[in-house]
């Protein structure tokens, strides 16, 4: 088995995503998958896991290699809170078991990647803050937070990672651009990483995204 690059996507499906935002998220995310399919390195090594979070937290796509990945429909309830903390907890337990560390008879995975997309803020703030150190201990190659839309709070994502992108809107164009950038970040990874070194991200596209 060759080295895998694991990418975890935590996607906000809380009530506020109803309507155009959830459609844009579906378009953007499935577009991302199509883009990655054309990248030979990603086709060789990328494995994707998708966790959605609203009132409930679901691993709607368990870890799947890109070649076998099927189009997915992300749905959201009509209303309800944003359980980002519970999503981080699920992430920790999944990544904890899925990630293969190198040993003398098995190749270790590349450092995994984490993308957290939200249009609001954690409703379970205490749980969220408690999970942050556990997420950091997993030693992700890069964690990208994305605060999308006018109500998204950057500050909570900043507690999780320095790499936070702010999107002014959650329309199709903005999300498509964002996921294009995600695609190039994934392609940049899966390269030789020095011990303890952090991966660089590609420059964000134009004025759409402000990495703060």
């Amino acid at each position: 088995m060759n080295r895998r690059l694991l990418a975890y996507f935590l996607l906000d499906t809380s009530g506020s995503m109803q309507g155009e935002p959830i459609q844009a998220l579906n378009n953007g995310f499935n577009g991302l998958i199509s883009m990655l399919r054309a990248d030979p390195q990603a086709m060789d090594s990328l494995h994707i896991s998708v966790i959605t979070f609203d009132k409930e937290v679901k691993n709607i796509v368990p870890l799947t290699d890109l070649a076998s990945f099927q189009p997915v429909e992300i749905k959201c309830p009509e209303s309800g809170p944003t359980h980002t903390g519970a999503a981080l907890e699920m992430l920790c337990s999944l990544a904890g078991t899925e990630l293969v560390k190198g040993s003398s008879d098995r190749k270790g995975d590349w450092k995994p990647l984490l993308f957290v997309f939200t249009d609001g803020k954690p409703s379970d703030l205490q749980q969220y803050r408690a999970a942050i150190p556990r997420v950091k201990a997993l030693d992700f190659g890069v964690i990208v937070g994305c605060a999308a839309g006018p109500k998204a709070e950057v500050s909570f994502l900043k507690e999780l990672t320095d790499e936070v992108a702010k999107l002014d809107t959650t329309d199709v164009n903005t999300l498509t651009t964002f996921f294009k950038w995600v695609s190039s970040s994934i392609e940049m990874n899966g390269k030789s990483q020095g011990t303890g070194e952090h991966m660089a991200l590609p420059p964000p596209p134009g004025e759409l995204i402000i990495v703060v």
Partner: protein
Amino acid sequence: MIVETFLKQLLSESNIAPDKFSDSTVARLTHNAKINELAKSITAARKLALTIFHMYKETEEFKDSQVILPNAVSRKYYEYRFDLSLFPNISIREIKNLDKTGLTFDAASAMICGIPTAALSIDLQVLFTSSQENNEVEDIKVIPFIVNADPKDLWLNKPSNRNDLFAKEDSDKYAGSFLDKRIVVASQRGRSHAHEGTFRDDHFCVRKLPLEWEIIAVADGAGSAKFSRQGSKIATEYIAESFNDELLLKELGDQCVHFFCPETIATPGNNPETGPSPDDLTIKIKSSIINILYKNVRSLHTALADFAGKEEIQLKDLNTTLIFALVKKFNFGYVVLTFGVGDCPVNIITENPRDIRLLNMLDIGDFGGGTRFVTMPEIFSHSNMASRFGINKFEHFSKLILMTDGIYDPKFVTENKLEDKDAWANFLEDLNGQNEDGLKVDFLQEEGIQDQLLLWLNFWSKGNHDDRTLAIIY
């Protein structure tokens, strides 16, 4: 009986309360031909309506059911059979859009098969019917279908920019004599770099030195470092040149003779009872040898730091691993002095083809790609620094091999296989032409062997597209 039930149900549905006349009327009508006929036809009509209802319901259920067609791969045979066991009344007539994929559908066996022509992503329109008795309804179920590209088709081969800073050839090769043996080396830019049009980060350097010493150095620049292509070039060339020093090699040669033939140590006036014990002496000589090697590695580090300073770049932009073997043939055998930092191995196969040894310590991180570099100052202060050096003697050897992880990842997978006899037997067979492409490196022919090795380096291995450098002394 049917008529009686029918009439009673009709009366109750029409809110006609039972009384003494209704019972007798019902009894009388059970034998009425007209009522009998009506009851039969209504029952039949109800049954038919129910059948139609179920038929439509089944189509709805089928449309909503999750049918997953596994993704196909371009130009690779594909086969999928629909499992309709949960939908006994449904049959698939045809699949629209399927012709665009190059696959065909056989309705009798409910099977899709064939060889997809090209990568695409498409919504298949599955035309199906649900039929019961003589009734039939037609509907369409949409199933997404993906044909992945053959990964081999996705790799581009873009030339690197010759005008860029520290430009480097995409491949390099060398063949020649090495002591009383031959050496062949080839280095090839990996597909991952070719795809992006970036440079090969590997480098090697072979050099003949004074006093019949020779050196081969191989380095693998870190993919994440901006100018590692230059780091690996400096590392190999500088270290080789640093041993181009007759005085140093004289001293080194003497120490090696002392180390391997302790009886040659001149000990004038030495009192066996007060002088150092033979063990102490050996340790002393060993540390002198290591010290000589250490100084040159240390000065390489300084040279890299100076270069970074001069070019106004960061030292870590030059991150590179390094292995080398400094070899001389003495009358008691070949002395092979090695050093390694990073994850590239130096292996020797002695005169016994099953006797294979790994001559250096490898740095393998917890995660893929996590290794150490000669550019890292901390390696020099670490307690394991001395164990990075190897002092070995072999009366004979059949092959001395240095490689970058671009070779050993696909061919040996993990470090513990680097002393595995079967893994090595397979590797040598592979070099001998036992591979998909039938490419052979003929060690019996001097002419063109470097070209053969360079071609061989193009082997295909899923997930392994790093730069590849392989040096063999034989």
